[in-house]
Protein backbone atom coordinates (compact mmCIF):
# COMPACT_ATOMS: atom_id res chain seq x y z
CA UNK A 1 0.00 0.00 0.00
CA UNK A 2 1.14 3.53 -0.76
CA UNK A 3 2.50 5.41 2.22
CA UNK A 4 1.08 8.81 3.11
CA UNK A 5 3.52 11.72 3.05
CA UNK A 6 3.34 14.83 5.23
CA UNK A 7 5.31 18.03 5.61
CA UNK A 8 6.89 18.66 9.01
CA UNK A 9 9.49 21.37 8.44
CA UNK A 10 9.93 24.46 6.29
CA UNK A 11 12.89 26.74 5.66
CA UNK A 12 13.10 29.73 3.37
CA UNK A 13 15.70 32.27 2.33
CA UNK A 14 14.30 35.03 0.16
CA UNK A 15 14.12 38.76 -0.40
CA UNK A 16 11.04 38.72 1.85
CA UNK A 17 12.83 37.24 4.80
CA UNK A 18 15.23 34.64 6.05
CA UNK A 19 12.85 33.35 8.68
CA UNK A 20 9.67 31.42 7.91
CA UNK A 21 7.33 33.55 10.04
CA UNK A 22 8.74 36.82 8.76
CA UNK A 23 8.40 35.47 5.22
CA UNK A 24 4.81 34.25 5.62
CA UNK A 25 3.72 37.51 7.25
CA UNK A 26 5.20 39.46 4.33
CA UNK A 27 3.31 37.24 1.87
CA UNK A 28 0.04 37.63 3.76
CA UNK A 29 0.49 41.40 3.80
CA UNK A 30 1.27 41.48 0.08
CA UNK A 31 4.75 42.95 0.44
CA UNK A 32 6.94 43.25 -2.65
CA UNK A 33 10.54 42.02 -2.34
CA UNK A 34 11.63 43.58 -5.62
CA UNK A 35 14.02 46.55 -5.74
CA UNK A 36 16.67 48.10 -7.96
CA UNK A 37 19.67 45.83 -8.57
CA UNK A 38 22.57 46.65 -6.24
CA UNK A 39 24.85 43.62 -6.68
CA UNK A 40 26.40 44.91 -9.91
CA UNK A 41 26.09 47.69 -12.45
CA UNK A 42 23.00 47.31 -14.63
CA UNK A 43 23.27 50.67 -16.38
CA UNK A 44 24.01 48.90 -19.68
CA UNK A 45 21.42 46.15 -19.20
CA UNK A 46 17.76 46.27 -20.19
CA UNK A 47 16.49 45.00 -16.83
CA UNK A 48 17.11 47.12 -13.74
CA UNK A 49 15.27 45.29 -10.96
CA UNK A 50 15.42 42.00 -9.06
CA UNK A 51 14.32 40.48 -5.75
CA UNK A 52 17.76 40.50 -4.14
CA UNK A 53 18.55 39.17 -0.70
CA UNK A 54 20.30 41.97 1.11
CA UNK A 55 20.77 40.75 4.67
CA UNK A 56 22.10 37.19 4.34
CA UNK A 57 24.98 36.23 6.61
CA UNK A 58 26.03 32.66 5.82
CA UNK A 59 28.06 32.37 9.03
CA UNK A 60 24.82 32.58 11.05
CA UNK A 61 24.05 29.12 9.67
CA UNK A 62 27.35 27.57 8.56
CA UNK A 63 30.90 27.47 9.88
CA UNK A 64 33.03 30.22 8.27
CA UNK A 65 35.41 27.80 6.60
CA UNK A 66 32.59 25.64 5.23
CA UNK A 67 30.78 28.73 3.94
CA UNK A 68 33.89 29.82 2.06
CA UNK A 69 33.90 26.48 0.21
CA UNK A 70 30.29 26.91 -0.97
CA UNK A 71 28.74 28.91 -3.75
CA UNK A 72 26.00 31.29 -2.62
CA UNK A 73 23.26 28.98 -3.94
CA UNK A 74 24.61 26.23 -1.72
CA UNK A 75 24.82 28.55 1.30
CA UNK A 76 21.15 29.44 0.77
CA UNK A 77 20.26 25.74 0.56
CA UNK A 78 22.17 24.93 3.75
CA UNK A 79 20.64 27.82 5.67
CA UNK A 80 17.09 26.90 4.61
CA UNK A 81 17.74 23.23 5.41
CA UNK A 82 18.90 24.07 8.92
CA UNK A 83 15.73 26.07 9.50
CA UNK A 84 13.54 23.30 8.09
CA UNK A 85 15.18 20.57 10.15
CA UNK A 86 14.95 22.72 13.27
CA UNK A 87 11.26 23.40 12.64
CA UNK A 88 10.61 19.67 12.09
CA UNK A 89 11.96 18.89 15.56
CA UNK A 90 13.73 15.79 14.20
CA UNK A 91 16.10 14.17 16.66
CA UNK A 92 18.99 13.30 14.37
CA UNK A 93 20.36 10.86 16.95
CA UNK A 94 17.21 8.77 16.89
CA UNK A 95 16.32 8.43 13.22
CA UNK A 96 17.38 5.69 10.80
CA UNK A 97 19.92 7.57 8.66
CA UNK A 98 19.75 4.94 5.91
CA UNK A 99 16.09 5.87 5.41
CA UNK A 100 16.78 9.62 5.48
CA UNK A 101 17.34 11.17 2.03
CA UNK A 102 17.69 14.37 0.05
CA UNK A 103 16.32 15.63 -3.27
CA UNK A 104 17.43 19.23 -3.69
CA UNK A 105 18.03 20.92 -7.03
CA UNK A 106 19.15 24.15 -8.57
CA UNK A 107 18.31 25.51 -12.00
CA UNK A 108 21.72 27.02 -12.67
CA UNK A 109 23.97 26.06 -9.76
CA UNK A 110 27.13 27.97 -8.90
CA UNK A 111 27.17 30.54 -11.65
CA UNK A 112 28.84 33.28 -9.57
CA UNK A 113 31.70 30.87 -8.86
CA UNK A 114 31.83 30.08 -12.58
CA UNK A 115 32.09 33.77 -13.48
CA UNK A 116 34.72 34.46 -10.84
CA UNK A 117 36.92 31.51 -11.78
CA UNK A 118 36.60 32.17 -15.51
CA UNK A 119 38.01 35.63 -14.76
CA UNK A 120 40.92 34.04 -12.86
CA UNK A 121 41.51 31.63 -15.74
CA UNK A 122 41.56 34.44 -18.30
CA UNK A 123 43.72 36.78 -16.21
CA UNK A 124 46.14 34.43 -14.44
CA UNK A 125 45.99 31.17 -16.36
CA UNK A 126 44.81 27.64 -15.61
CA UNK A 127 47.25 27.12 -12.71
CA UNK A 128 45.39 29.64 -10.57
CA UNK A 129 41.90 28.17 -10.97
CA UNK A 130 40.67 27.21 -7.51
CA UNK A 131 40.53 23.52 -6.58
CA UNK A 132 37.10 24.41 -5.19
CA UNK A 133 35.85 25.69 -8.55
CA UNK A 134 34.21 22.42 -9.59
CA UNK A 135 32.81 21.36 -6.20
CA UNK A 136 31.42 24.87 -5.67
CA UNK A 137 29.90 25.21 -9.11
CA UNK A 138 28.18 21.88 -9.69
CA UNK A 139 24.41 21.94 -9.14
CA UNK A 140 24.28 18.74 -7.09
CA UNK A 141 26.53 20.07 -4.34
CA UNK A 142 23.65 21.38 -2.22
CA UNK A 143 22.18 17.85 -2.12
CA UNK A 144 25.63 16.54 -1.17
CA UNK A 145 26.35 19.17 1.48
CA UNK A 146 22.92 18.71 3.10
CA UNK A 147 23.52 14.96 3.31
CA UNK A 148 26.92 15.57 4.96
CA UNK A 149 25.49 18.11 7.39
CA UNK A 150 22.64 15.93 8.64
CA UNK A 151 24.04 12.46 8.00
CA UNK A 152 21.32 11.68 5.46
CA UNK A 153 22.68 8.45 4.02
CA UNK A 154 19.65 7.32 2.01
CA UNK A 155 18.23 8.23 -1.39
CA UNK A 156 19.93 11.33 -2.80
CA UNK A 157 19.74 13.22 -6.06
CA UNK A 158 19.72 16.66 -7.62
CA UNK A 159 16.96 17.63 -10.00
CA UNK A 160 17.70 20.18 -12.73
CA UNK A 161 14.65 21.15 -14.79
CA UNK A 162 15.13 24.92 -15.00
CA UNK A 163 12.23 26.76 -13.36
CA UNK A 164 10.40 23.49 -12.67
CA UNK A 165 13.38 22.17 -10.66
CA UNK A 166 12.13 22.29 -7.10
CA UNK A 167 8.56 21.18 -7.84
CA UNK A 168 10.07 18.15 -9.57
CA UNK A 169 12.38 17.73 -6.57
CA UNK A 170 9.50 17.73 -4.08
CA UNK A 171 7.45 15.43 -6.32
CA UNK A 172 10.31 12.97 -6.67
CA UNK A 173 11.03 13.03 -2.92
CA UNK A 174 7.32 12.49 -2.23
CA UNK A 175 7.38 9.40 -4.45
CA UNK A 176 10.47 8.02 -2.68
CA UNK A 177 8.60 8.02 0.65
CA UNK A 178 5.28 6.98 -0.89
CA UNK A 179 6.82 3.82 -2.34
CA UNK A 180 8.50 3.02 0.97
CA UNK A 181 12.13 3.75 0.16
CA UNK A 182 12.65 6.39 2.87
CA UNK A 183 11.05 7.69 6.09
CA UNK A 184 12.23 11.29 5.82
CA UNK A 185 13.40 13.45 2.94
CA UNK A 186 14.85 16.95 2.82
CA UNK A 187 13.71 18.47 -0.45
CA UNK A 188 13.45 21.71 -2.41
CA UNK A 189 15.74 23.97 -4.36
CA UNK A 190 18.14 26.88 -4.24
CA UNK A 191 19.24 29.56 -6.67
CA UNK A 192 21.70 32.45 -6.63
CA UNK A 193 21.73 33.61 -10.22
CA UNK A 194 21.56 37.39 -9.83
CA UNK A 195 25.00 37.71 -11.40
CA UNK A 196 26.17 39.86 -14.33
CA UNK A 197 26.55 37.03 -16.87
CA UNK A 198 23.31 35.29 -15.96
CA UNK A 199 21.42 38.58 -15.94
CA UNK A 200 22.86 39.50 -19.35
CA UNK A 201 21.75 36.15 -20.75
CA UNK A 202 18.18 36.52 -19.53
CA UNK A 203 18.14 40.12 -20.83
CA UNK A 204 19.20 38.89 -24.26
CA UNK A 205 16.33 36.41 -24.23
CA UNK A 206 13.95 39.36 -23.65
CA UNK A 207 12.49 37.25 -20.88
CA UNK A 208 12.80 39.76 -18.04
CA UNK A 209 10.73 42.85 -17.33
CA UNK A 210 12.19 46.14 -18.57
CA UNK A 211 10.01 48.19 -16.22
CA UNK A 212 12.26 50.23 -13.94
CA UNK A 213 9.73 50.84 -11.18
CA UNK A 214 10.23 47.93 -8.75
CA UNK A 215 6.61 48.17 -7.66
CA UNK A 216 5.32 47.62 -11.18
CA UNK A 217 7.89 45.35 -12.81
CA UNK A 218 6.31 42.02 -11.88
CA UNK A 219 2.60 42.08 -12.76
CA UNK A 220 1.40 38.52 -13.28
CA UNK A 221 -1.85 38.20 -15.27
CA UNK A 222 -2.02 42.01 -15.71
CA UNK A 223 -2.53 43.28 -19.28
CA UNK A 224 0.64 45.36 -19.01
CA UNK A 225 2.97 42.60 -17.83
CA UNK A 226 6.22 42.53 -19.80
CA UNK A 227 8.48 39.87 -18.35
CA UNK A 228 9.61 38.14 -15.19
CA UNK A 229 11.71 39.60 -12.38
CA UNK A 230 14.55 37.46 -11.07
CA UNK A 231 14.68 36.50 -7.42
CA UNK A 232 17.09 34.37 -5.43
CA UNK A 233 17.15 32.19 -2.35
CA UNK A 234 16.07 28.74 -1.30
CA UNK A 235 13.02 26.82 -0.21
CA UNK A 236 13.49 23.58 1.73
CA UNK A 237 10.90 21.16 3.12
CA UNK A 238 11.25 18.26 5.52
CA UNK A 239 8.75 15.64 4.40
CA UNK A 240 8.00 12.46 6.20
CA UNK A 241 6.02 9.24 6.13
CA UNK A 242 2.80 9.92 8.08
CA UNK A 243 3.16 7.22 10.76
CA UNK A 244 6.81 8.16 11.30
CA UNK A 245 5.74 11.77 11.91
CA UNK A 246 2.87 10.79 14.22
CA UNK A 247 5.02 8.39 16.24
CA UNK A 248 7.55 11.06 17.10
CA UNK A 249 4.82 13.61 17.83
CA UNK A 250 5.75 15.94 14.98
CA UNK A 251 3.75 19.05 14.15
CA UNK A 252 2.23 18.22 10.75
CA UNK A 253 1.81 21.22 8.44
CA UNK A 254 0.15 19.65 5.38
CA UNK A 255 0.00 16.46 3.32
CA UNK A 256 1.44 15.91 -0.16
CA UNK A 257 -1.10 13.89 -2.11
CA UNK A 258 -0.21 14.02 -5.81
CA UNK A 259 2.46 14.73 -8.37
CA UNK A 260 2.50 15.24 -12.11
CA UNK A 261 5.43 15.76 -14.45
CA UNK A 262 5.27 16.22 -18.23
CA UNK A 263 7.11 17.85 -21.09
CA UNK A 264 5.65 20.02 -23.86
CA UNK A 265 7.97 18.35 -26.40
CA UNK A 266 7.56 21.55 -28.37
CA UNK A 267 10.23 24.29 -28.03
CA UNK A 268 13.33 25.01 -25.93
CA UNK A 269 11.91 28.13 -24.26
CA UNK A 270 8.37 28.90 -25.50
CA UNK A 271 5.44 27.13 -23.85
CA UNK A 272 3.26 24.96 -26.08
CA UNK A 273 0.16 26.72 -27.46
CA UNK A 274 -2.79 26.67 -25.09
CA UNK A 275 -0.47 25.42 -22.35
CA UNK A 276 -1.31 21.85 -23.27
CA UNK A 277 1.72 20.39 -21.48
CA UNK A 278 0.85 22.25 -18.29
CA UNK A 279 -2.77 21.07 -18.54
CA UNK A 280 -1.70 17.43 -18.87
CA UNK A 281 0.58 17.92 -15.89
CA UNK A 282 -2.17 19.31 -13.62
CA UNK A 283 -4.44 16.41 -14.65
CA UNK A 284 -1.74 13.90 -13.75
CA UNK A 285 -1.29 15.45 -10.30
CA UNK A 286 -5.05 15.50 -9.67
CA UNK A 287 -5.41 11.87 -10.81
CA UNK A 288 -2.37 10.79 -8.81
CA UNK A 289 -4.06 12.22 -5.72
CA UNK A 290 -7.30 10.37 -6.57
CA UNK A 291 -9.17 13.67 -6.79
CA UNK A 292 -11.60 15.39 -9.14
CA UNK A 293 -10.80 18.87 -10.49
CA UNK A 294 -13.72 20.27 -8.45
CA UNK A 295 -11.87 19.31 -5.24
CA UNK A 296 -9.14 21.89 -5.86
CA UNK A 297 -9.72 25.26 -4.18
CA UNK A 298 -6.48 27.09 -4.90
CA UNK A 299 -3.67 27.03 -7.43
CA UNK A 300 -0.34 28.68 -6.76
CA UNK A 301 0.36 29.43 -10.42
CA UNK A 302 3.72 29.54 -12.14
CA UNK A 303 2.54 33.08 -13.12
CA UNK A 304 5.86 34.54 -14.24
CA UNK A 305 4.45 37.84 -15.56
CA UNK A 306 5.56 37.04 -19.12
CA UNK A 307 3.01 37.46 -21.88
CA UNK A 308 2.95 33.80 -22.91
CA UNK A 309 3.19 32.09 -19.55
CA UNK A 310 0.28 33.87 -17.95
CA UNK A 311 -1.96 33.60 -21.00
CA UNK A 312 -1.28 29.93 -21.63
CA UNK A 313 -1.37 28.95 -17.97
CA UNK A 314 -4.81 30.57 -17.74
CA UNK A 315 -5.97 28.58 -20.78
CA UNK A 316 -4.53 25.38 -19.33
CA UNK A 317 -6.41 25.92 -16.04
CA UNK A 318 -9.66 26.41 -17.99
CA UNK A 319 -8.94 23.26 -20.00
CA UNK A 320 -8.50 21.17 -16.87
CA UNK A 321 -11.14 22.72 -14.63
CA UNK A 322 -13.91 23.78 -17.05
CA UNK A 323 -16.59 25.77 -15.18
CA UNK A 324 -14.77 25.21 -11.89
CA UNK A 325 -11.90 27.41 -13.19
CA UNK A 326 -14.02 30.46 -12.37
CA UNK A 327 -14.66 29.27 -8.84
CA UNK A 328 -11.15 28.46 -7.71
CA UNK A 329 -8.55 30.99 -6.63
CA UNK A 330 -5.30 31.31 -8.58
CA UNK A 331 -2.45 33.52 -7.49
CA UNK A 332 1.11 34.25 -8.51
CA UNK A 333 3.21 34.90 -5.45
CA UNK A 334 6.14 35.71 -7.77
CA UNK A 335 4.63 39.19 -7.74
CA UNK A 336 6.10 39.40 -4.21
CA UNK A 337 9.09 37.03 -4.20
CA UNK A 338 10.32 37.52 -7.76
CA UNK A 339 11.08 34.40 -9.79
CA UNK A 340 13.51 32.20 -7.89
CA UNK A 341 14.00 29.95 -10.95
CA UNK A 342 15.11 26.57 -9.58
CA UNK A 343 13.99 27.52 -6.07
CA UNK A 344 10.62 28.95 -7.15
CA UNK A 345 8.62 25.72 -6.89
CA UNK A 346 9.80 25.01 -3.35
CA UNK A 347 9.16 28.55 -2.10
CA UNK A 348 5.70 28.41 -3.68
CA UNK A 349 5.02 24.97 -2.20
CA UNK A 350 5.88 26.48 1.19
CA UNK A 351 3.44 29.34 0.58
CA UNK A 352 0.74 26.87 -0.52
CA UNK A 353 1.31 24.70 2.58
CA UNK A 354 0.95 27.73 4.87
CA UNK A 355 -2.11 28.89 2.87
CA UNK A 356 -3.75 25.52 3.56
CA UNK A 357 -2.70 25.48 7.20
CA UNK A 358 -3.93 29.01 7.92
CA UNK A 359 -6.90 29.04 5.49
CA UNK A 360 -5.52 32.12 3.81
CA UNK A 361 -5.19 32.80 0.07
CA UNK A 362 -2.03 34.78 -0.77
CA UNK A 363 -2.52 37.60 -3.28
CA UNK A 364 -1.19 38.45 -6.73
CA UNK A 365 0.09 41.97 -6.08
CA UNK A 366 0.75 44.81 -8.56
CA UNK A 367 -2.45 43.86 -10.37
CA UNK A 368 -4.05 46.90 -12.02
CA UNK A 369 -5.20 46.35 -15.59
CA UNK A 370 -7.33 43.30 -16.38
CA UNK A 371 -6.36 41.30 -19.45
CA UNK A 372 -9.36 39.82 -21.31
CA UNK A 373 -7.26 36.70 -21.93
CA UNK A 374 -6.50 36.29 -18.24
CA UNK A 375 -9.91 36.23 -16.62
CA UNK A 376 -9.69 34.04 -13.50
CA UNK A 377 -9.78 35.02 -9.83
CA UNK A 378 -6.14 35.91 -9.26
CA UNK A 379 -6.73 37.11 -5.67
CA UNK A 380 -5.77 40.62 -6.82
CA UNK A 381 -3.67 42.78 -4.47
CA UNK A 382 -5.21 41.61 -1.18
CA UNK A 383 -4.97 38.16 0.33
CA UNK A 384 -8.10 36.78 1.96
CA UNK A 385 -9.31 34.04 4.25
CA UNK A 386 -10.85 30.99 2.62
CA UNK A 387 -11.39 27.39 3.67
CA UNK A 388 -9.54 25.21 1.18
CA UNK A 389 -8.79 21.52 1.48
CA UNK A 390 -6.78 20.84 -1.66
CA UNK A 391 -4.38 23.04 -3.62
CA UNK A 392 -1.99 22.70 -6.54
CA UNK A 393 1.37 24.35 -7.09
CA UNK A 394 2.55 24.63 -10.70
CA UNK A 395 6.05 25.12 -12.08
CA UNK A 396 7.05 25.30 -15.74
CA UNK A 397 10.60 25.46 -17.04
CA UNK A 398 12.72 26.12 -20.12
CA UNK A 399 13.16 22.85 -21.95
CA UNK A 400 9.38 22.36 -21.88
CA UNK A 401 9.31 20.99 -18.33
CA UNK A 402 6.05 21.03 -16.39
CA UNK A 403 5.63 19.93 -12.78
CA UNK A 404 2.63 20.09 -10.44
CA UNK A 405 2.19 18.93 -6.88
CA UNK A 406 -1.14 18.49 -5.09
CA UNK A 407 -1.28 19.40 -1.41
CA UNK A 408 -3.93 18.79 1.24
CA UNK A 409 -4.77 20.59 4.44
CA UNK A 410 -3.83 18.32 7.34
CA UNK A 411 -6.55 17.91 9.89
Amino acid at each position, binding site marked *: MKKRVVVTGLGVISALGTDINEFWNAIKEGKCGISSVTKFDVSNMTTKVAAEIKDFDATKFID*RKEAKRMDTYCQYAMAASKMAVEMSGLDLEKIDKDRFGVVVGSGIGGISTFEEQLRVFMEKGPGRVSPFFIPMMISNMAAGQIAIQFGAKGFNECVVTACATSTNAIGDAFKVIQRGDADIMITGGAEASITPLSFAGFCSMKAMSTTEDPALACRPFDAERNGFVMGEGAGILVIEELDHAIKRGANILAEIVGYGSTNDAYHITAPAPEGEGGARCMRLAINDAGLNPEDIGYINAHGTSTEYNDKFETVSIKTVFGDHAKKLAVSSTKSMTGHLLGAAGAVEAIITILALRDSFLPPTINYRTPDPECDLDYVPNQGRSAEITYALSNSLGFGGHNATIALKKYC
Partner: protein
Amino acid sequence: MFEKVKKIIAEQLGVEEDEIAMESSFIDDLGADSLDIVELIMALEEEFDLEIPDSEAEKISTVGDVVEYIKNNS
Protein backbone atom coordinates in the same frame (compact mmCIF):
# COMPACT_ATOMS: atom_id res chain seq x y z
CA MET B 1 57.98 35.89 6.87
CA PHE B 2 56.45 33.38 9.31
CA GLU B 3 53.94 36.07 10.27
CA LYS B 4 52.93 36.56 6.65
CA VAL B 5 52.60 32.79 6.10
CA LYS B 6 50.56 32.50 9.27
CA LYS B 7 48.17 35.17 8.08
CA ILE B 8 47.60 33.42 4.75
CA ILE B 9 47.08 30.06 6.43
CA ALA B 10 44.59 31.55 8.88
CA GLU B 11 42.66 33.19 6.05
CA GLN B 12 42.67 30.11 3.81
CA LEU B 13 41.87 27.50 6.42
CA GLY B 14 39.59 29.58 8.60
CA VAL B 15 41.66 29.09 11.76
CA GLU B 16 42.93 31.59 14.33
CA GLU B 17 46.51 32.77 13.89
CA ASP B 18 47.46 31.76 17.44
CA GLU B 19 46.55 28.14 16.65
CA ILE B 20 49.30 28.07 14.02
CA ALA B 21 52.79 26.93 15.06
CA MET B 22 55.81 25.80 13.05
CA GLU B 23 55.11 22.16 13.90
CA SER B 24 51.34 22.32 13.10
CA SER B 25 50.27 19.68 10.60
CA PHE B 26 47.86 21.07 8.02
CA ILE B 27 45.69 17.96 8.01
CA ASP B 28 45.95 16.74 11.62
CA ASP B 29 46.10 20.06 13.49
CA LEU B 30 44.56 22.67 11.22
CA GLY B 31 41.69 20.61 9.74
CA ALA B 32 42.75 20.98 6.10
CA ASP B 33 41.90 18.52 3.35
CA SER B 34 43.78 17.92 0.10
CA LEU B 35 41.82 20.64 -1.73
CA ASP B 36 42.59 23.18 1.00
CA ILE B 37 46.29 22.44 0.64
CA VAL B 38 46.19 22.98 -3.13
CA GLU B 39 44.45 26.31 -2.61
CA LEU B 40 46.83 27.31 0.15
CA ILE B 41 49.84 26.58 -2.02
CA MET B 42 48.37 28.73 -4.80
CA ALA B 43 47.90 31.59 -2.35
CA LEU B 44 51.50 31.24 -1.12
CA GLU B 45 52.81 31.13 -4.70
CA GLU B 46 50.95 34.38 -5.40
CA GLU B 47 52.16 36.10 -2.24
CA PHE B 48 55.80 35.09 -2.51
CA ASP B 49 55.97 35.10 -6.30
CA LEU B 50 57.28 31.57 -6.67
CA GLU B 51 56.23 28.28 -8.23
CA ILE B 52 56.05 25.23 -6.00
CA PRO B 53 56.21 22.15 -8.26
CA ASP B 54 53.70 19.36 -7.47
CA SER B 55 56.56 17.03 -6.53
CA GLU B 56 57.64 19.51 -3.82
CA ALA B 57 54.09 20.39 -2.78
CA GLU B 58 53.40 16.73 -2.03
CA LYS B 59 56.16 16.77 0.62
CA ILE B 60 54.61 19.66 2.52
CA SER B 61 52.75 18.53 5.60
CA THR B 62 53.52 21.10 8.31
CA VAL B 63 53.70 24.88 8.55
CA GLY B 64 57.45 24.49 9.09
CA ASP B 65 57.78 22.68 5.73
CA VAL B 66 56.22 25.68 3.99
CA VAL B 67 58.36 28.24 5.79
CA GLU B 68 61.47 26.20 5.01
CA TYR B 69 60.57 25.88 1.34
CA ILE B 70 59.93 29.61 0.96
CA LYS B 71 63.16 30.47 2.76
CA ASN B 72 65.18 28.26 0.40
CA ASN B 73 63.44 29.20 -2.83
CA SER B 74 62.54 32.88 -2.83
